[in-house]
């Protein structure tokens, strides 16, 4: 495989150095909030972060940290620590990793920063409700829960009103925690930056419509950290402008993420964090590139409400990818295939993420019917490698690539 890789070299993104500095600075601040006179809130990945930044609160994302633990292969031992305390092996490994890290004080950055309060939004899953209840009890801090009802087909007005009203409660909660009133002007600025970041991220991902794609989905899995954690800050805007410039330069020169791009694929679901490098090598050594995915594009909102209001924010958070039904997800996948000129799609059946994984079998059949492109489902877990069989997955992918070559 190494020889094949020499024939298909990965082109390192220069902005990665700036990305590392940025994330290091972020984690340094979150780890030592008192040095910066800040409070810390733990928040779910789909939670409204803009009001936190407006109030000067540092957000910490246990899911993002879970991904970091997965990528550094520390997740299994942290999950085991949680399991020893009575938590079932079958629960989400992000949650188990976080709970295990809280118990042991272990993880890539050591003991996690103690939150002053928690913010949980169930627009990504129901798991986070239980997970944040557990942490709120264990750490003895207040929890704010933003309930965003799932919509299977259409968004009803009373549904939206419910989220908008709760957004008001969220602001009141923050004012109570911070003992000061909500700064409306600053909030507008944060939301404006947030939407600018989202637009930049969408433009960056769209650049991979070009042939060859300048930015593989495996790159997006890494460079997505600021859109999740620093959305609404000046830092994120600056960083994504830099990354976009670099990738536009690649497009101008006709340079792809890899030297050779014969098969273009779309990825569905959260990455297999501990095996990103191997999967990337496996695909690239066979001339295949993941050019887009449903996961990182979830942060690339199509039509942000540019009034920068709380109501606009409510709609944005109520309508994210994971809070929508199978019909929407199927159409989205079919559109990605068409938009990015893909030859097929890979679906990660993720035992830790039911909202993403339930329905994938039907979705695969339907997307193939709509687009004529084949799909492959591989079984894994996003951070816990204990139930992953890399040899089997490798065989499946190689056979799948052969099928695609045979079709074209």
């Amino acid at each position, binding site marked *: 495989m190494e020889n094949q890789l020499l024939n298909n070299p990965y082109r390192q993104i220069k902005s990665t150095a700036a990305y590392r500095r940025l994330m290091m600075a972020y984690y340094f601040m979150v780890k030592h909030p008192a040095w910066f006179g800040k409070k810390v809130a733990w928040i779910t990945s789909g939670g409204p972060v803009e009001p936190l930044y407006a109030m000067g609160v540092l957000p910490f994302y246990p899911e993002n940290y879970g991904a970091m633990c997965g990528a550094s292969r520390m997740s299994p031992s942290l999950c085991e620590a949680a399991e020893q305390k009575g938590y079932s092996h079958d629960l989400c490994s992000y949650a188990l990793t976080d709970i295990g890290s809280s118990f042991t004080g272990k993880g890539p950055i050591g003991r996690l920063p103690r939150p002053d309060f928690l913010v949980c939004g169930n627009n990504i899953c129901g798991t986070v409700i239980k997970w944040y209840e557990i942490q709120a009890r264990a750490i003895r801090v207040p929890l704010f829960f933003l*309930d965003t*009802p799932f919509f299977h087909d259409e968004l009803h007005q009373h549904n939206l009103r419910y989220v908008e009203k709760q957004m008001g409660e969220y602001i009141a909660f923050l004012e109570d925690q911070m003992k000061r009133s909500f700064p409306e002007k600053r909030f507008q600025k944060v939301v404006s930056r947030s939407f600018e970041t989202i637009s930049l991220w969408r433009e960056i991902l769209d650049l991979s419509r070009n042939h060859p794609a300048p930015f593989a989905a495996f790159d997006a899995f890494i460079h997505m950290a600021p859109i999740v954690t620093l959305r609404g800050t000046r830092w994120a805007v600056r960083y994504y402008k830099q990354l976009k410039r670099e990738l536009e330069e690649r497009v101008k020169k006709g340079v792809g993420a890899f030297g050779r791009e014969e098969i273009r694929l779309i990825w569905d679901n959260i990455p297999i964090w501990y095996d990103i490098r191997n999967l990337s090598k496996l695909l690239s050594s066979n001339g295949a590139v993941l050019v887009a995915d449903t996961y990182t594009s979830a942060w690339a909102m199509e039509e942000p409400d540019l009034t920068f209001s709380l109501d606009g924010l409510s709609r944005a958070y109520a309508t994210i990818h994971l809070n929508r039904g199978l019909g929407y997800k199927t159409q989205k996948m079919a559109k990605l295939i068409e938009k990015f000129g893909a030859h097929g799609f890979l679906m990660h059946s993720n035992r830790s993420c039911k909202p993403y994984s339930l329905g994938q079998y039907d979705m695969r059949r339907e997307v193939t019917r709509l687009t004529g492109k084949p799909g492959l489902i591989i079984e894994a877990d996003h951070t816990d490698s204990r139930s992953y069989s890399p040899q089997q997955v490798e065989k499946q992918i190689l056979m799948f690539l052969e099928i695609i070559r045979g079709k074209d």
Partner: protein
Amino acid sequence: MGNKPSLIREFERVASLEYKDIASQLPGDCIPIGFFCPYVPEEMLHAAGAFPLRLMGTPIRMSHVQAHLPPNCCHLVKSSFESLLRGELDFLKGIVFSHTCDTMQGLSDIWAFQKRLPFQFDFMTPSNLSSERSRPYLKAEIERFKAFLDANVREITPQDLKASIHLFNQIREKTQTLYRLRRKWPGWISGSDFAQIIRAGYLMDRSRYLNLLGQLLETIPEKSEDNGHPIPVFLAGNMTHSPSYFSMMEEAGASVVSDNLCSGARFLRLVTCEDIDPIDALTERYFSSFLCPAKHSGVQAHIETLIKEVEEAGARGVIFLFYKYCEPHYFDYPDLKKALEAKGIPSLLLEVDDPATSQGQLKIRIQAFVEMLNPI
């Protein structure tokens, strides 16, 4: 008035009916509508002239479901979907899902994808029961459900809805009496018979069920029979009204004095106020005492509710009986266990996949637990 053995036999007969038998026994003009969860207001289905049929999982060999669902779904979801794919539920005119856990949410989407039933409705209950904003939202959702039934089944008049609420309240009242009498006289109705009685209530015409319950309550003995003083235990978990579990507990020398199963005592908490507007009353009942682990009502709510109920029931131990892969229950479990231990109440966790299988090992564990509760 029927005698006790014949009444019990009738409950058993209904509880053991397969879907095809239920379908064949329904009157021609009946509109059977399936549902899974007590968050679906059965009263509204009933008031619309439909027959609410609760899908409670069946012992079934899985042969179709693997092509649609990953393995880590609970037995209720897998077996119900297997029944749908086999065509056993084709007699249903519709299905109503309510928003609870991620697996049910996913099942609803996949179910709709198959397009096997004439209609499907997703009743989106709020997950947050501690926000004041949840009440108007739920009320609007109930009104949306009513409009759907008006358009697709039959218009629900206020009189019909009030009558249905009254009927279901009576059923809850009689079932509550049954629970109380079993606690007083554990030998009067065996655990397995009791499980069948409860199960039958979701599968038969509700007026007839109420009538049978009434007849059964008239067979109460005048004085207590000597029953060997079984150890009182509390059963916590989801929808596992399989008679064999209750038998195993009784054979081990225990008696289930109360439970919080969503097909059991939790259902009894849905008594609906009859003095106010029926839609308001249906809304309000979900905020008073009914609490499923998939819902949030403050971070201590599940712990406090369980402790209170166990103490009120006078149980000496708690048996957690969970479907494998039931995430909301498994997330709560470690803290519930710890809270019970702090009160000196031991507990036992039993994980079941298909309730019809792997009972041998469970039996041994239940025996050991009950012996531990009653040292010589």
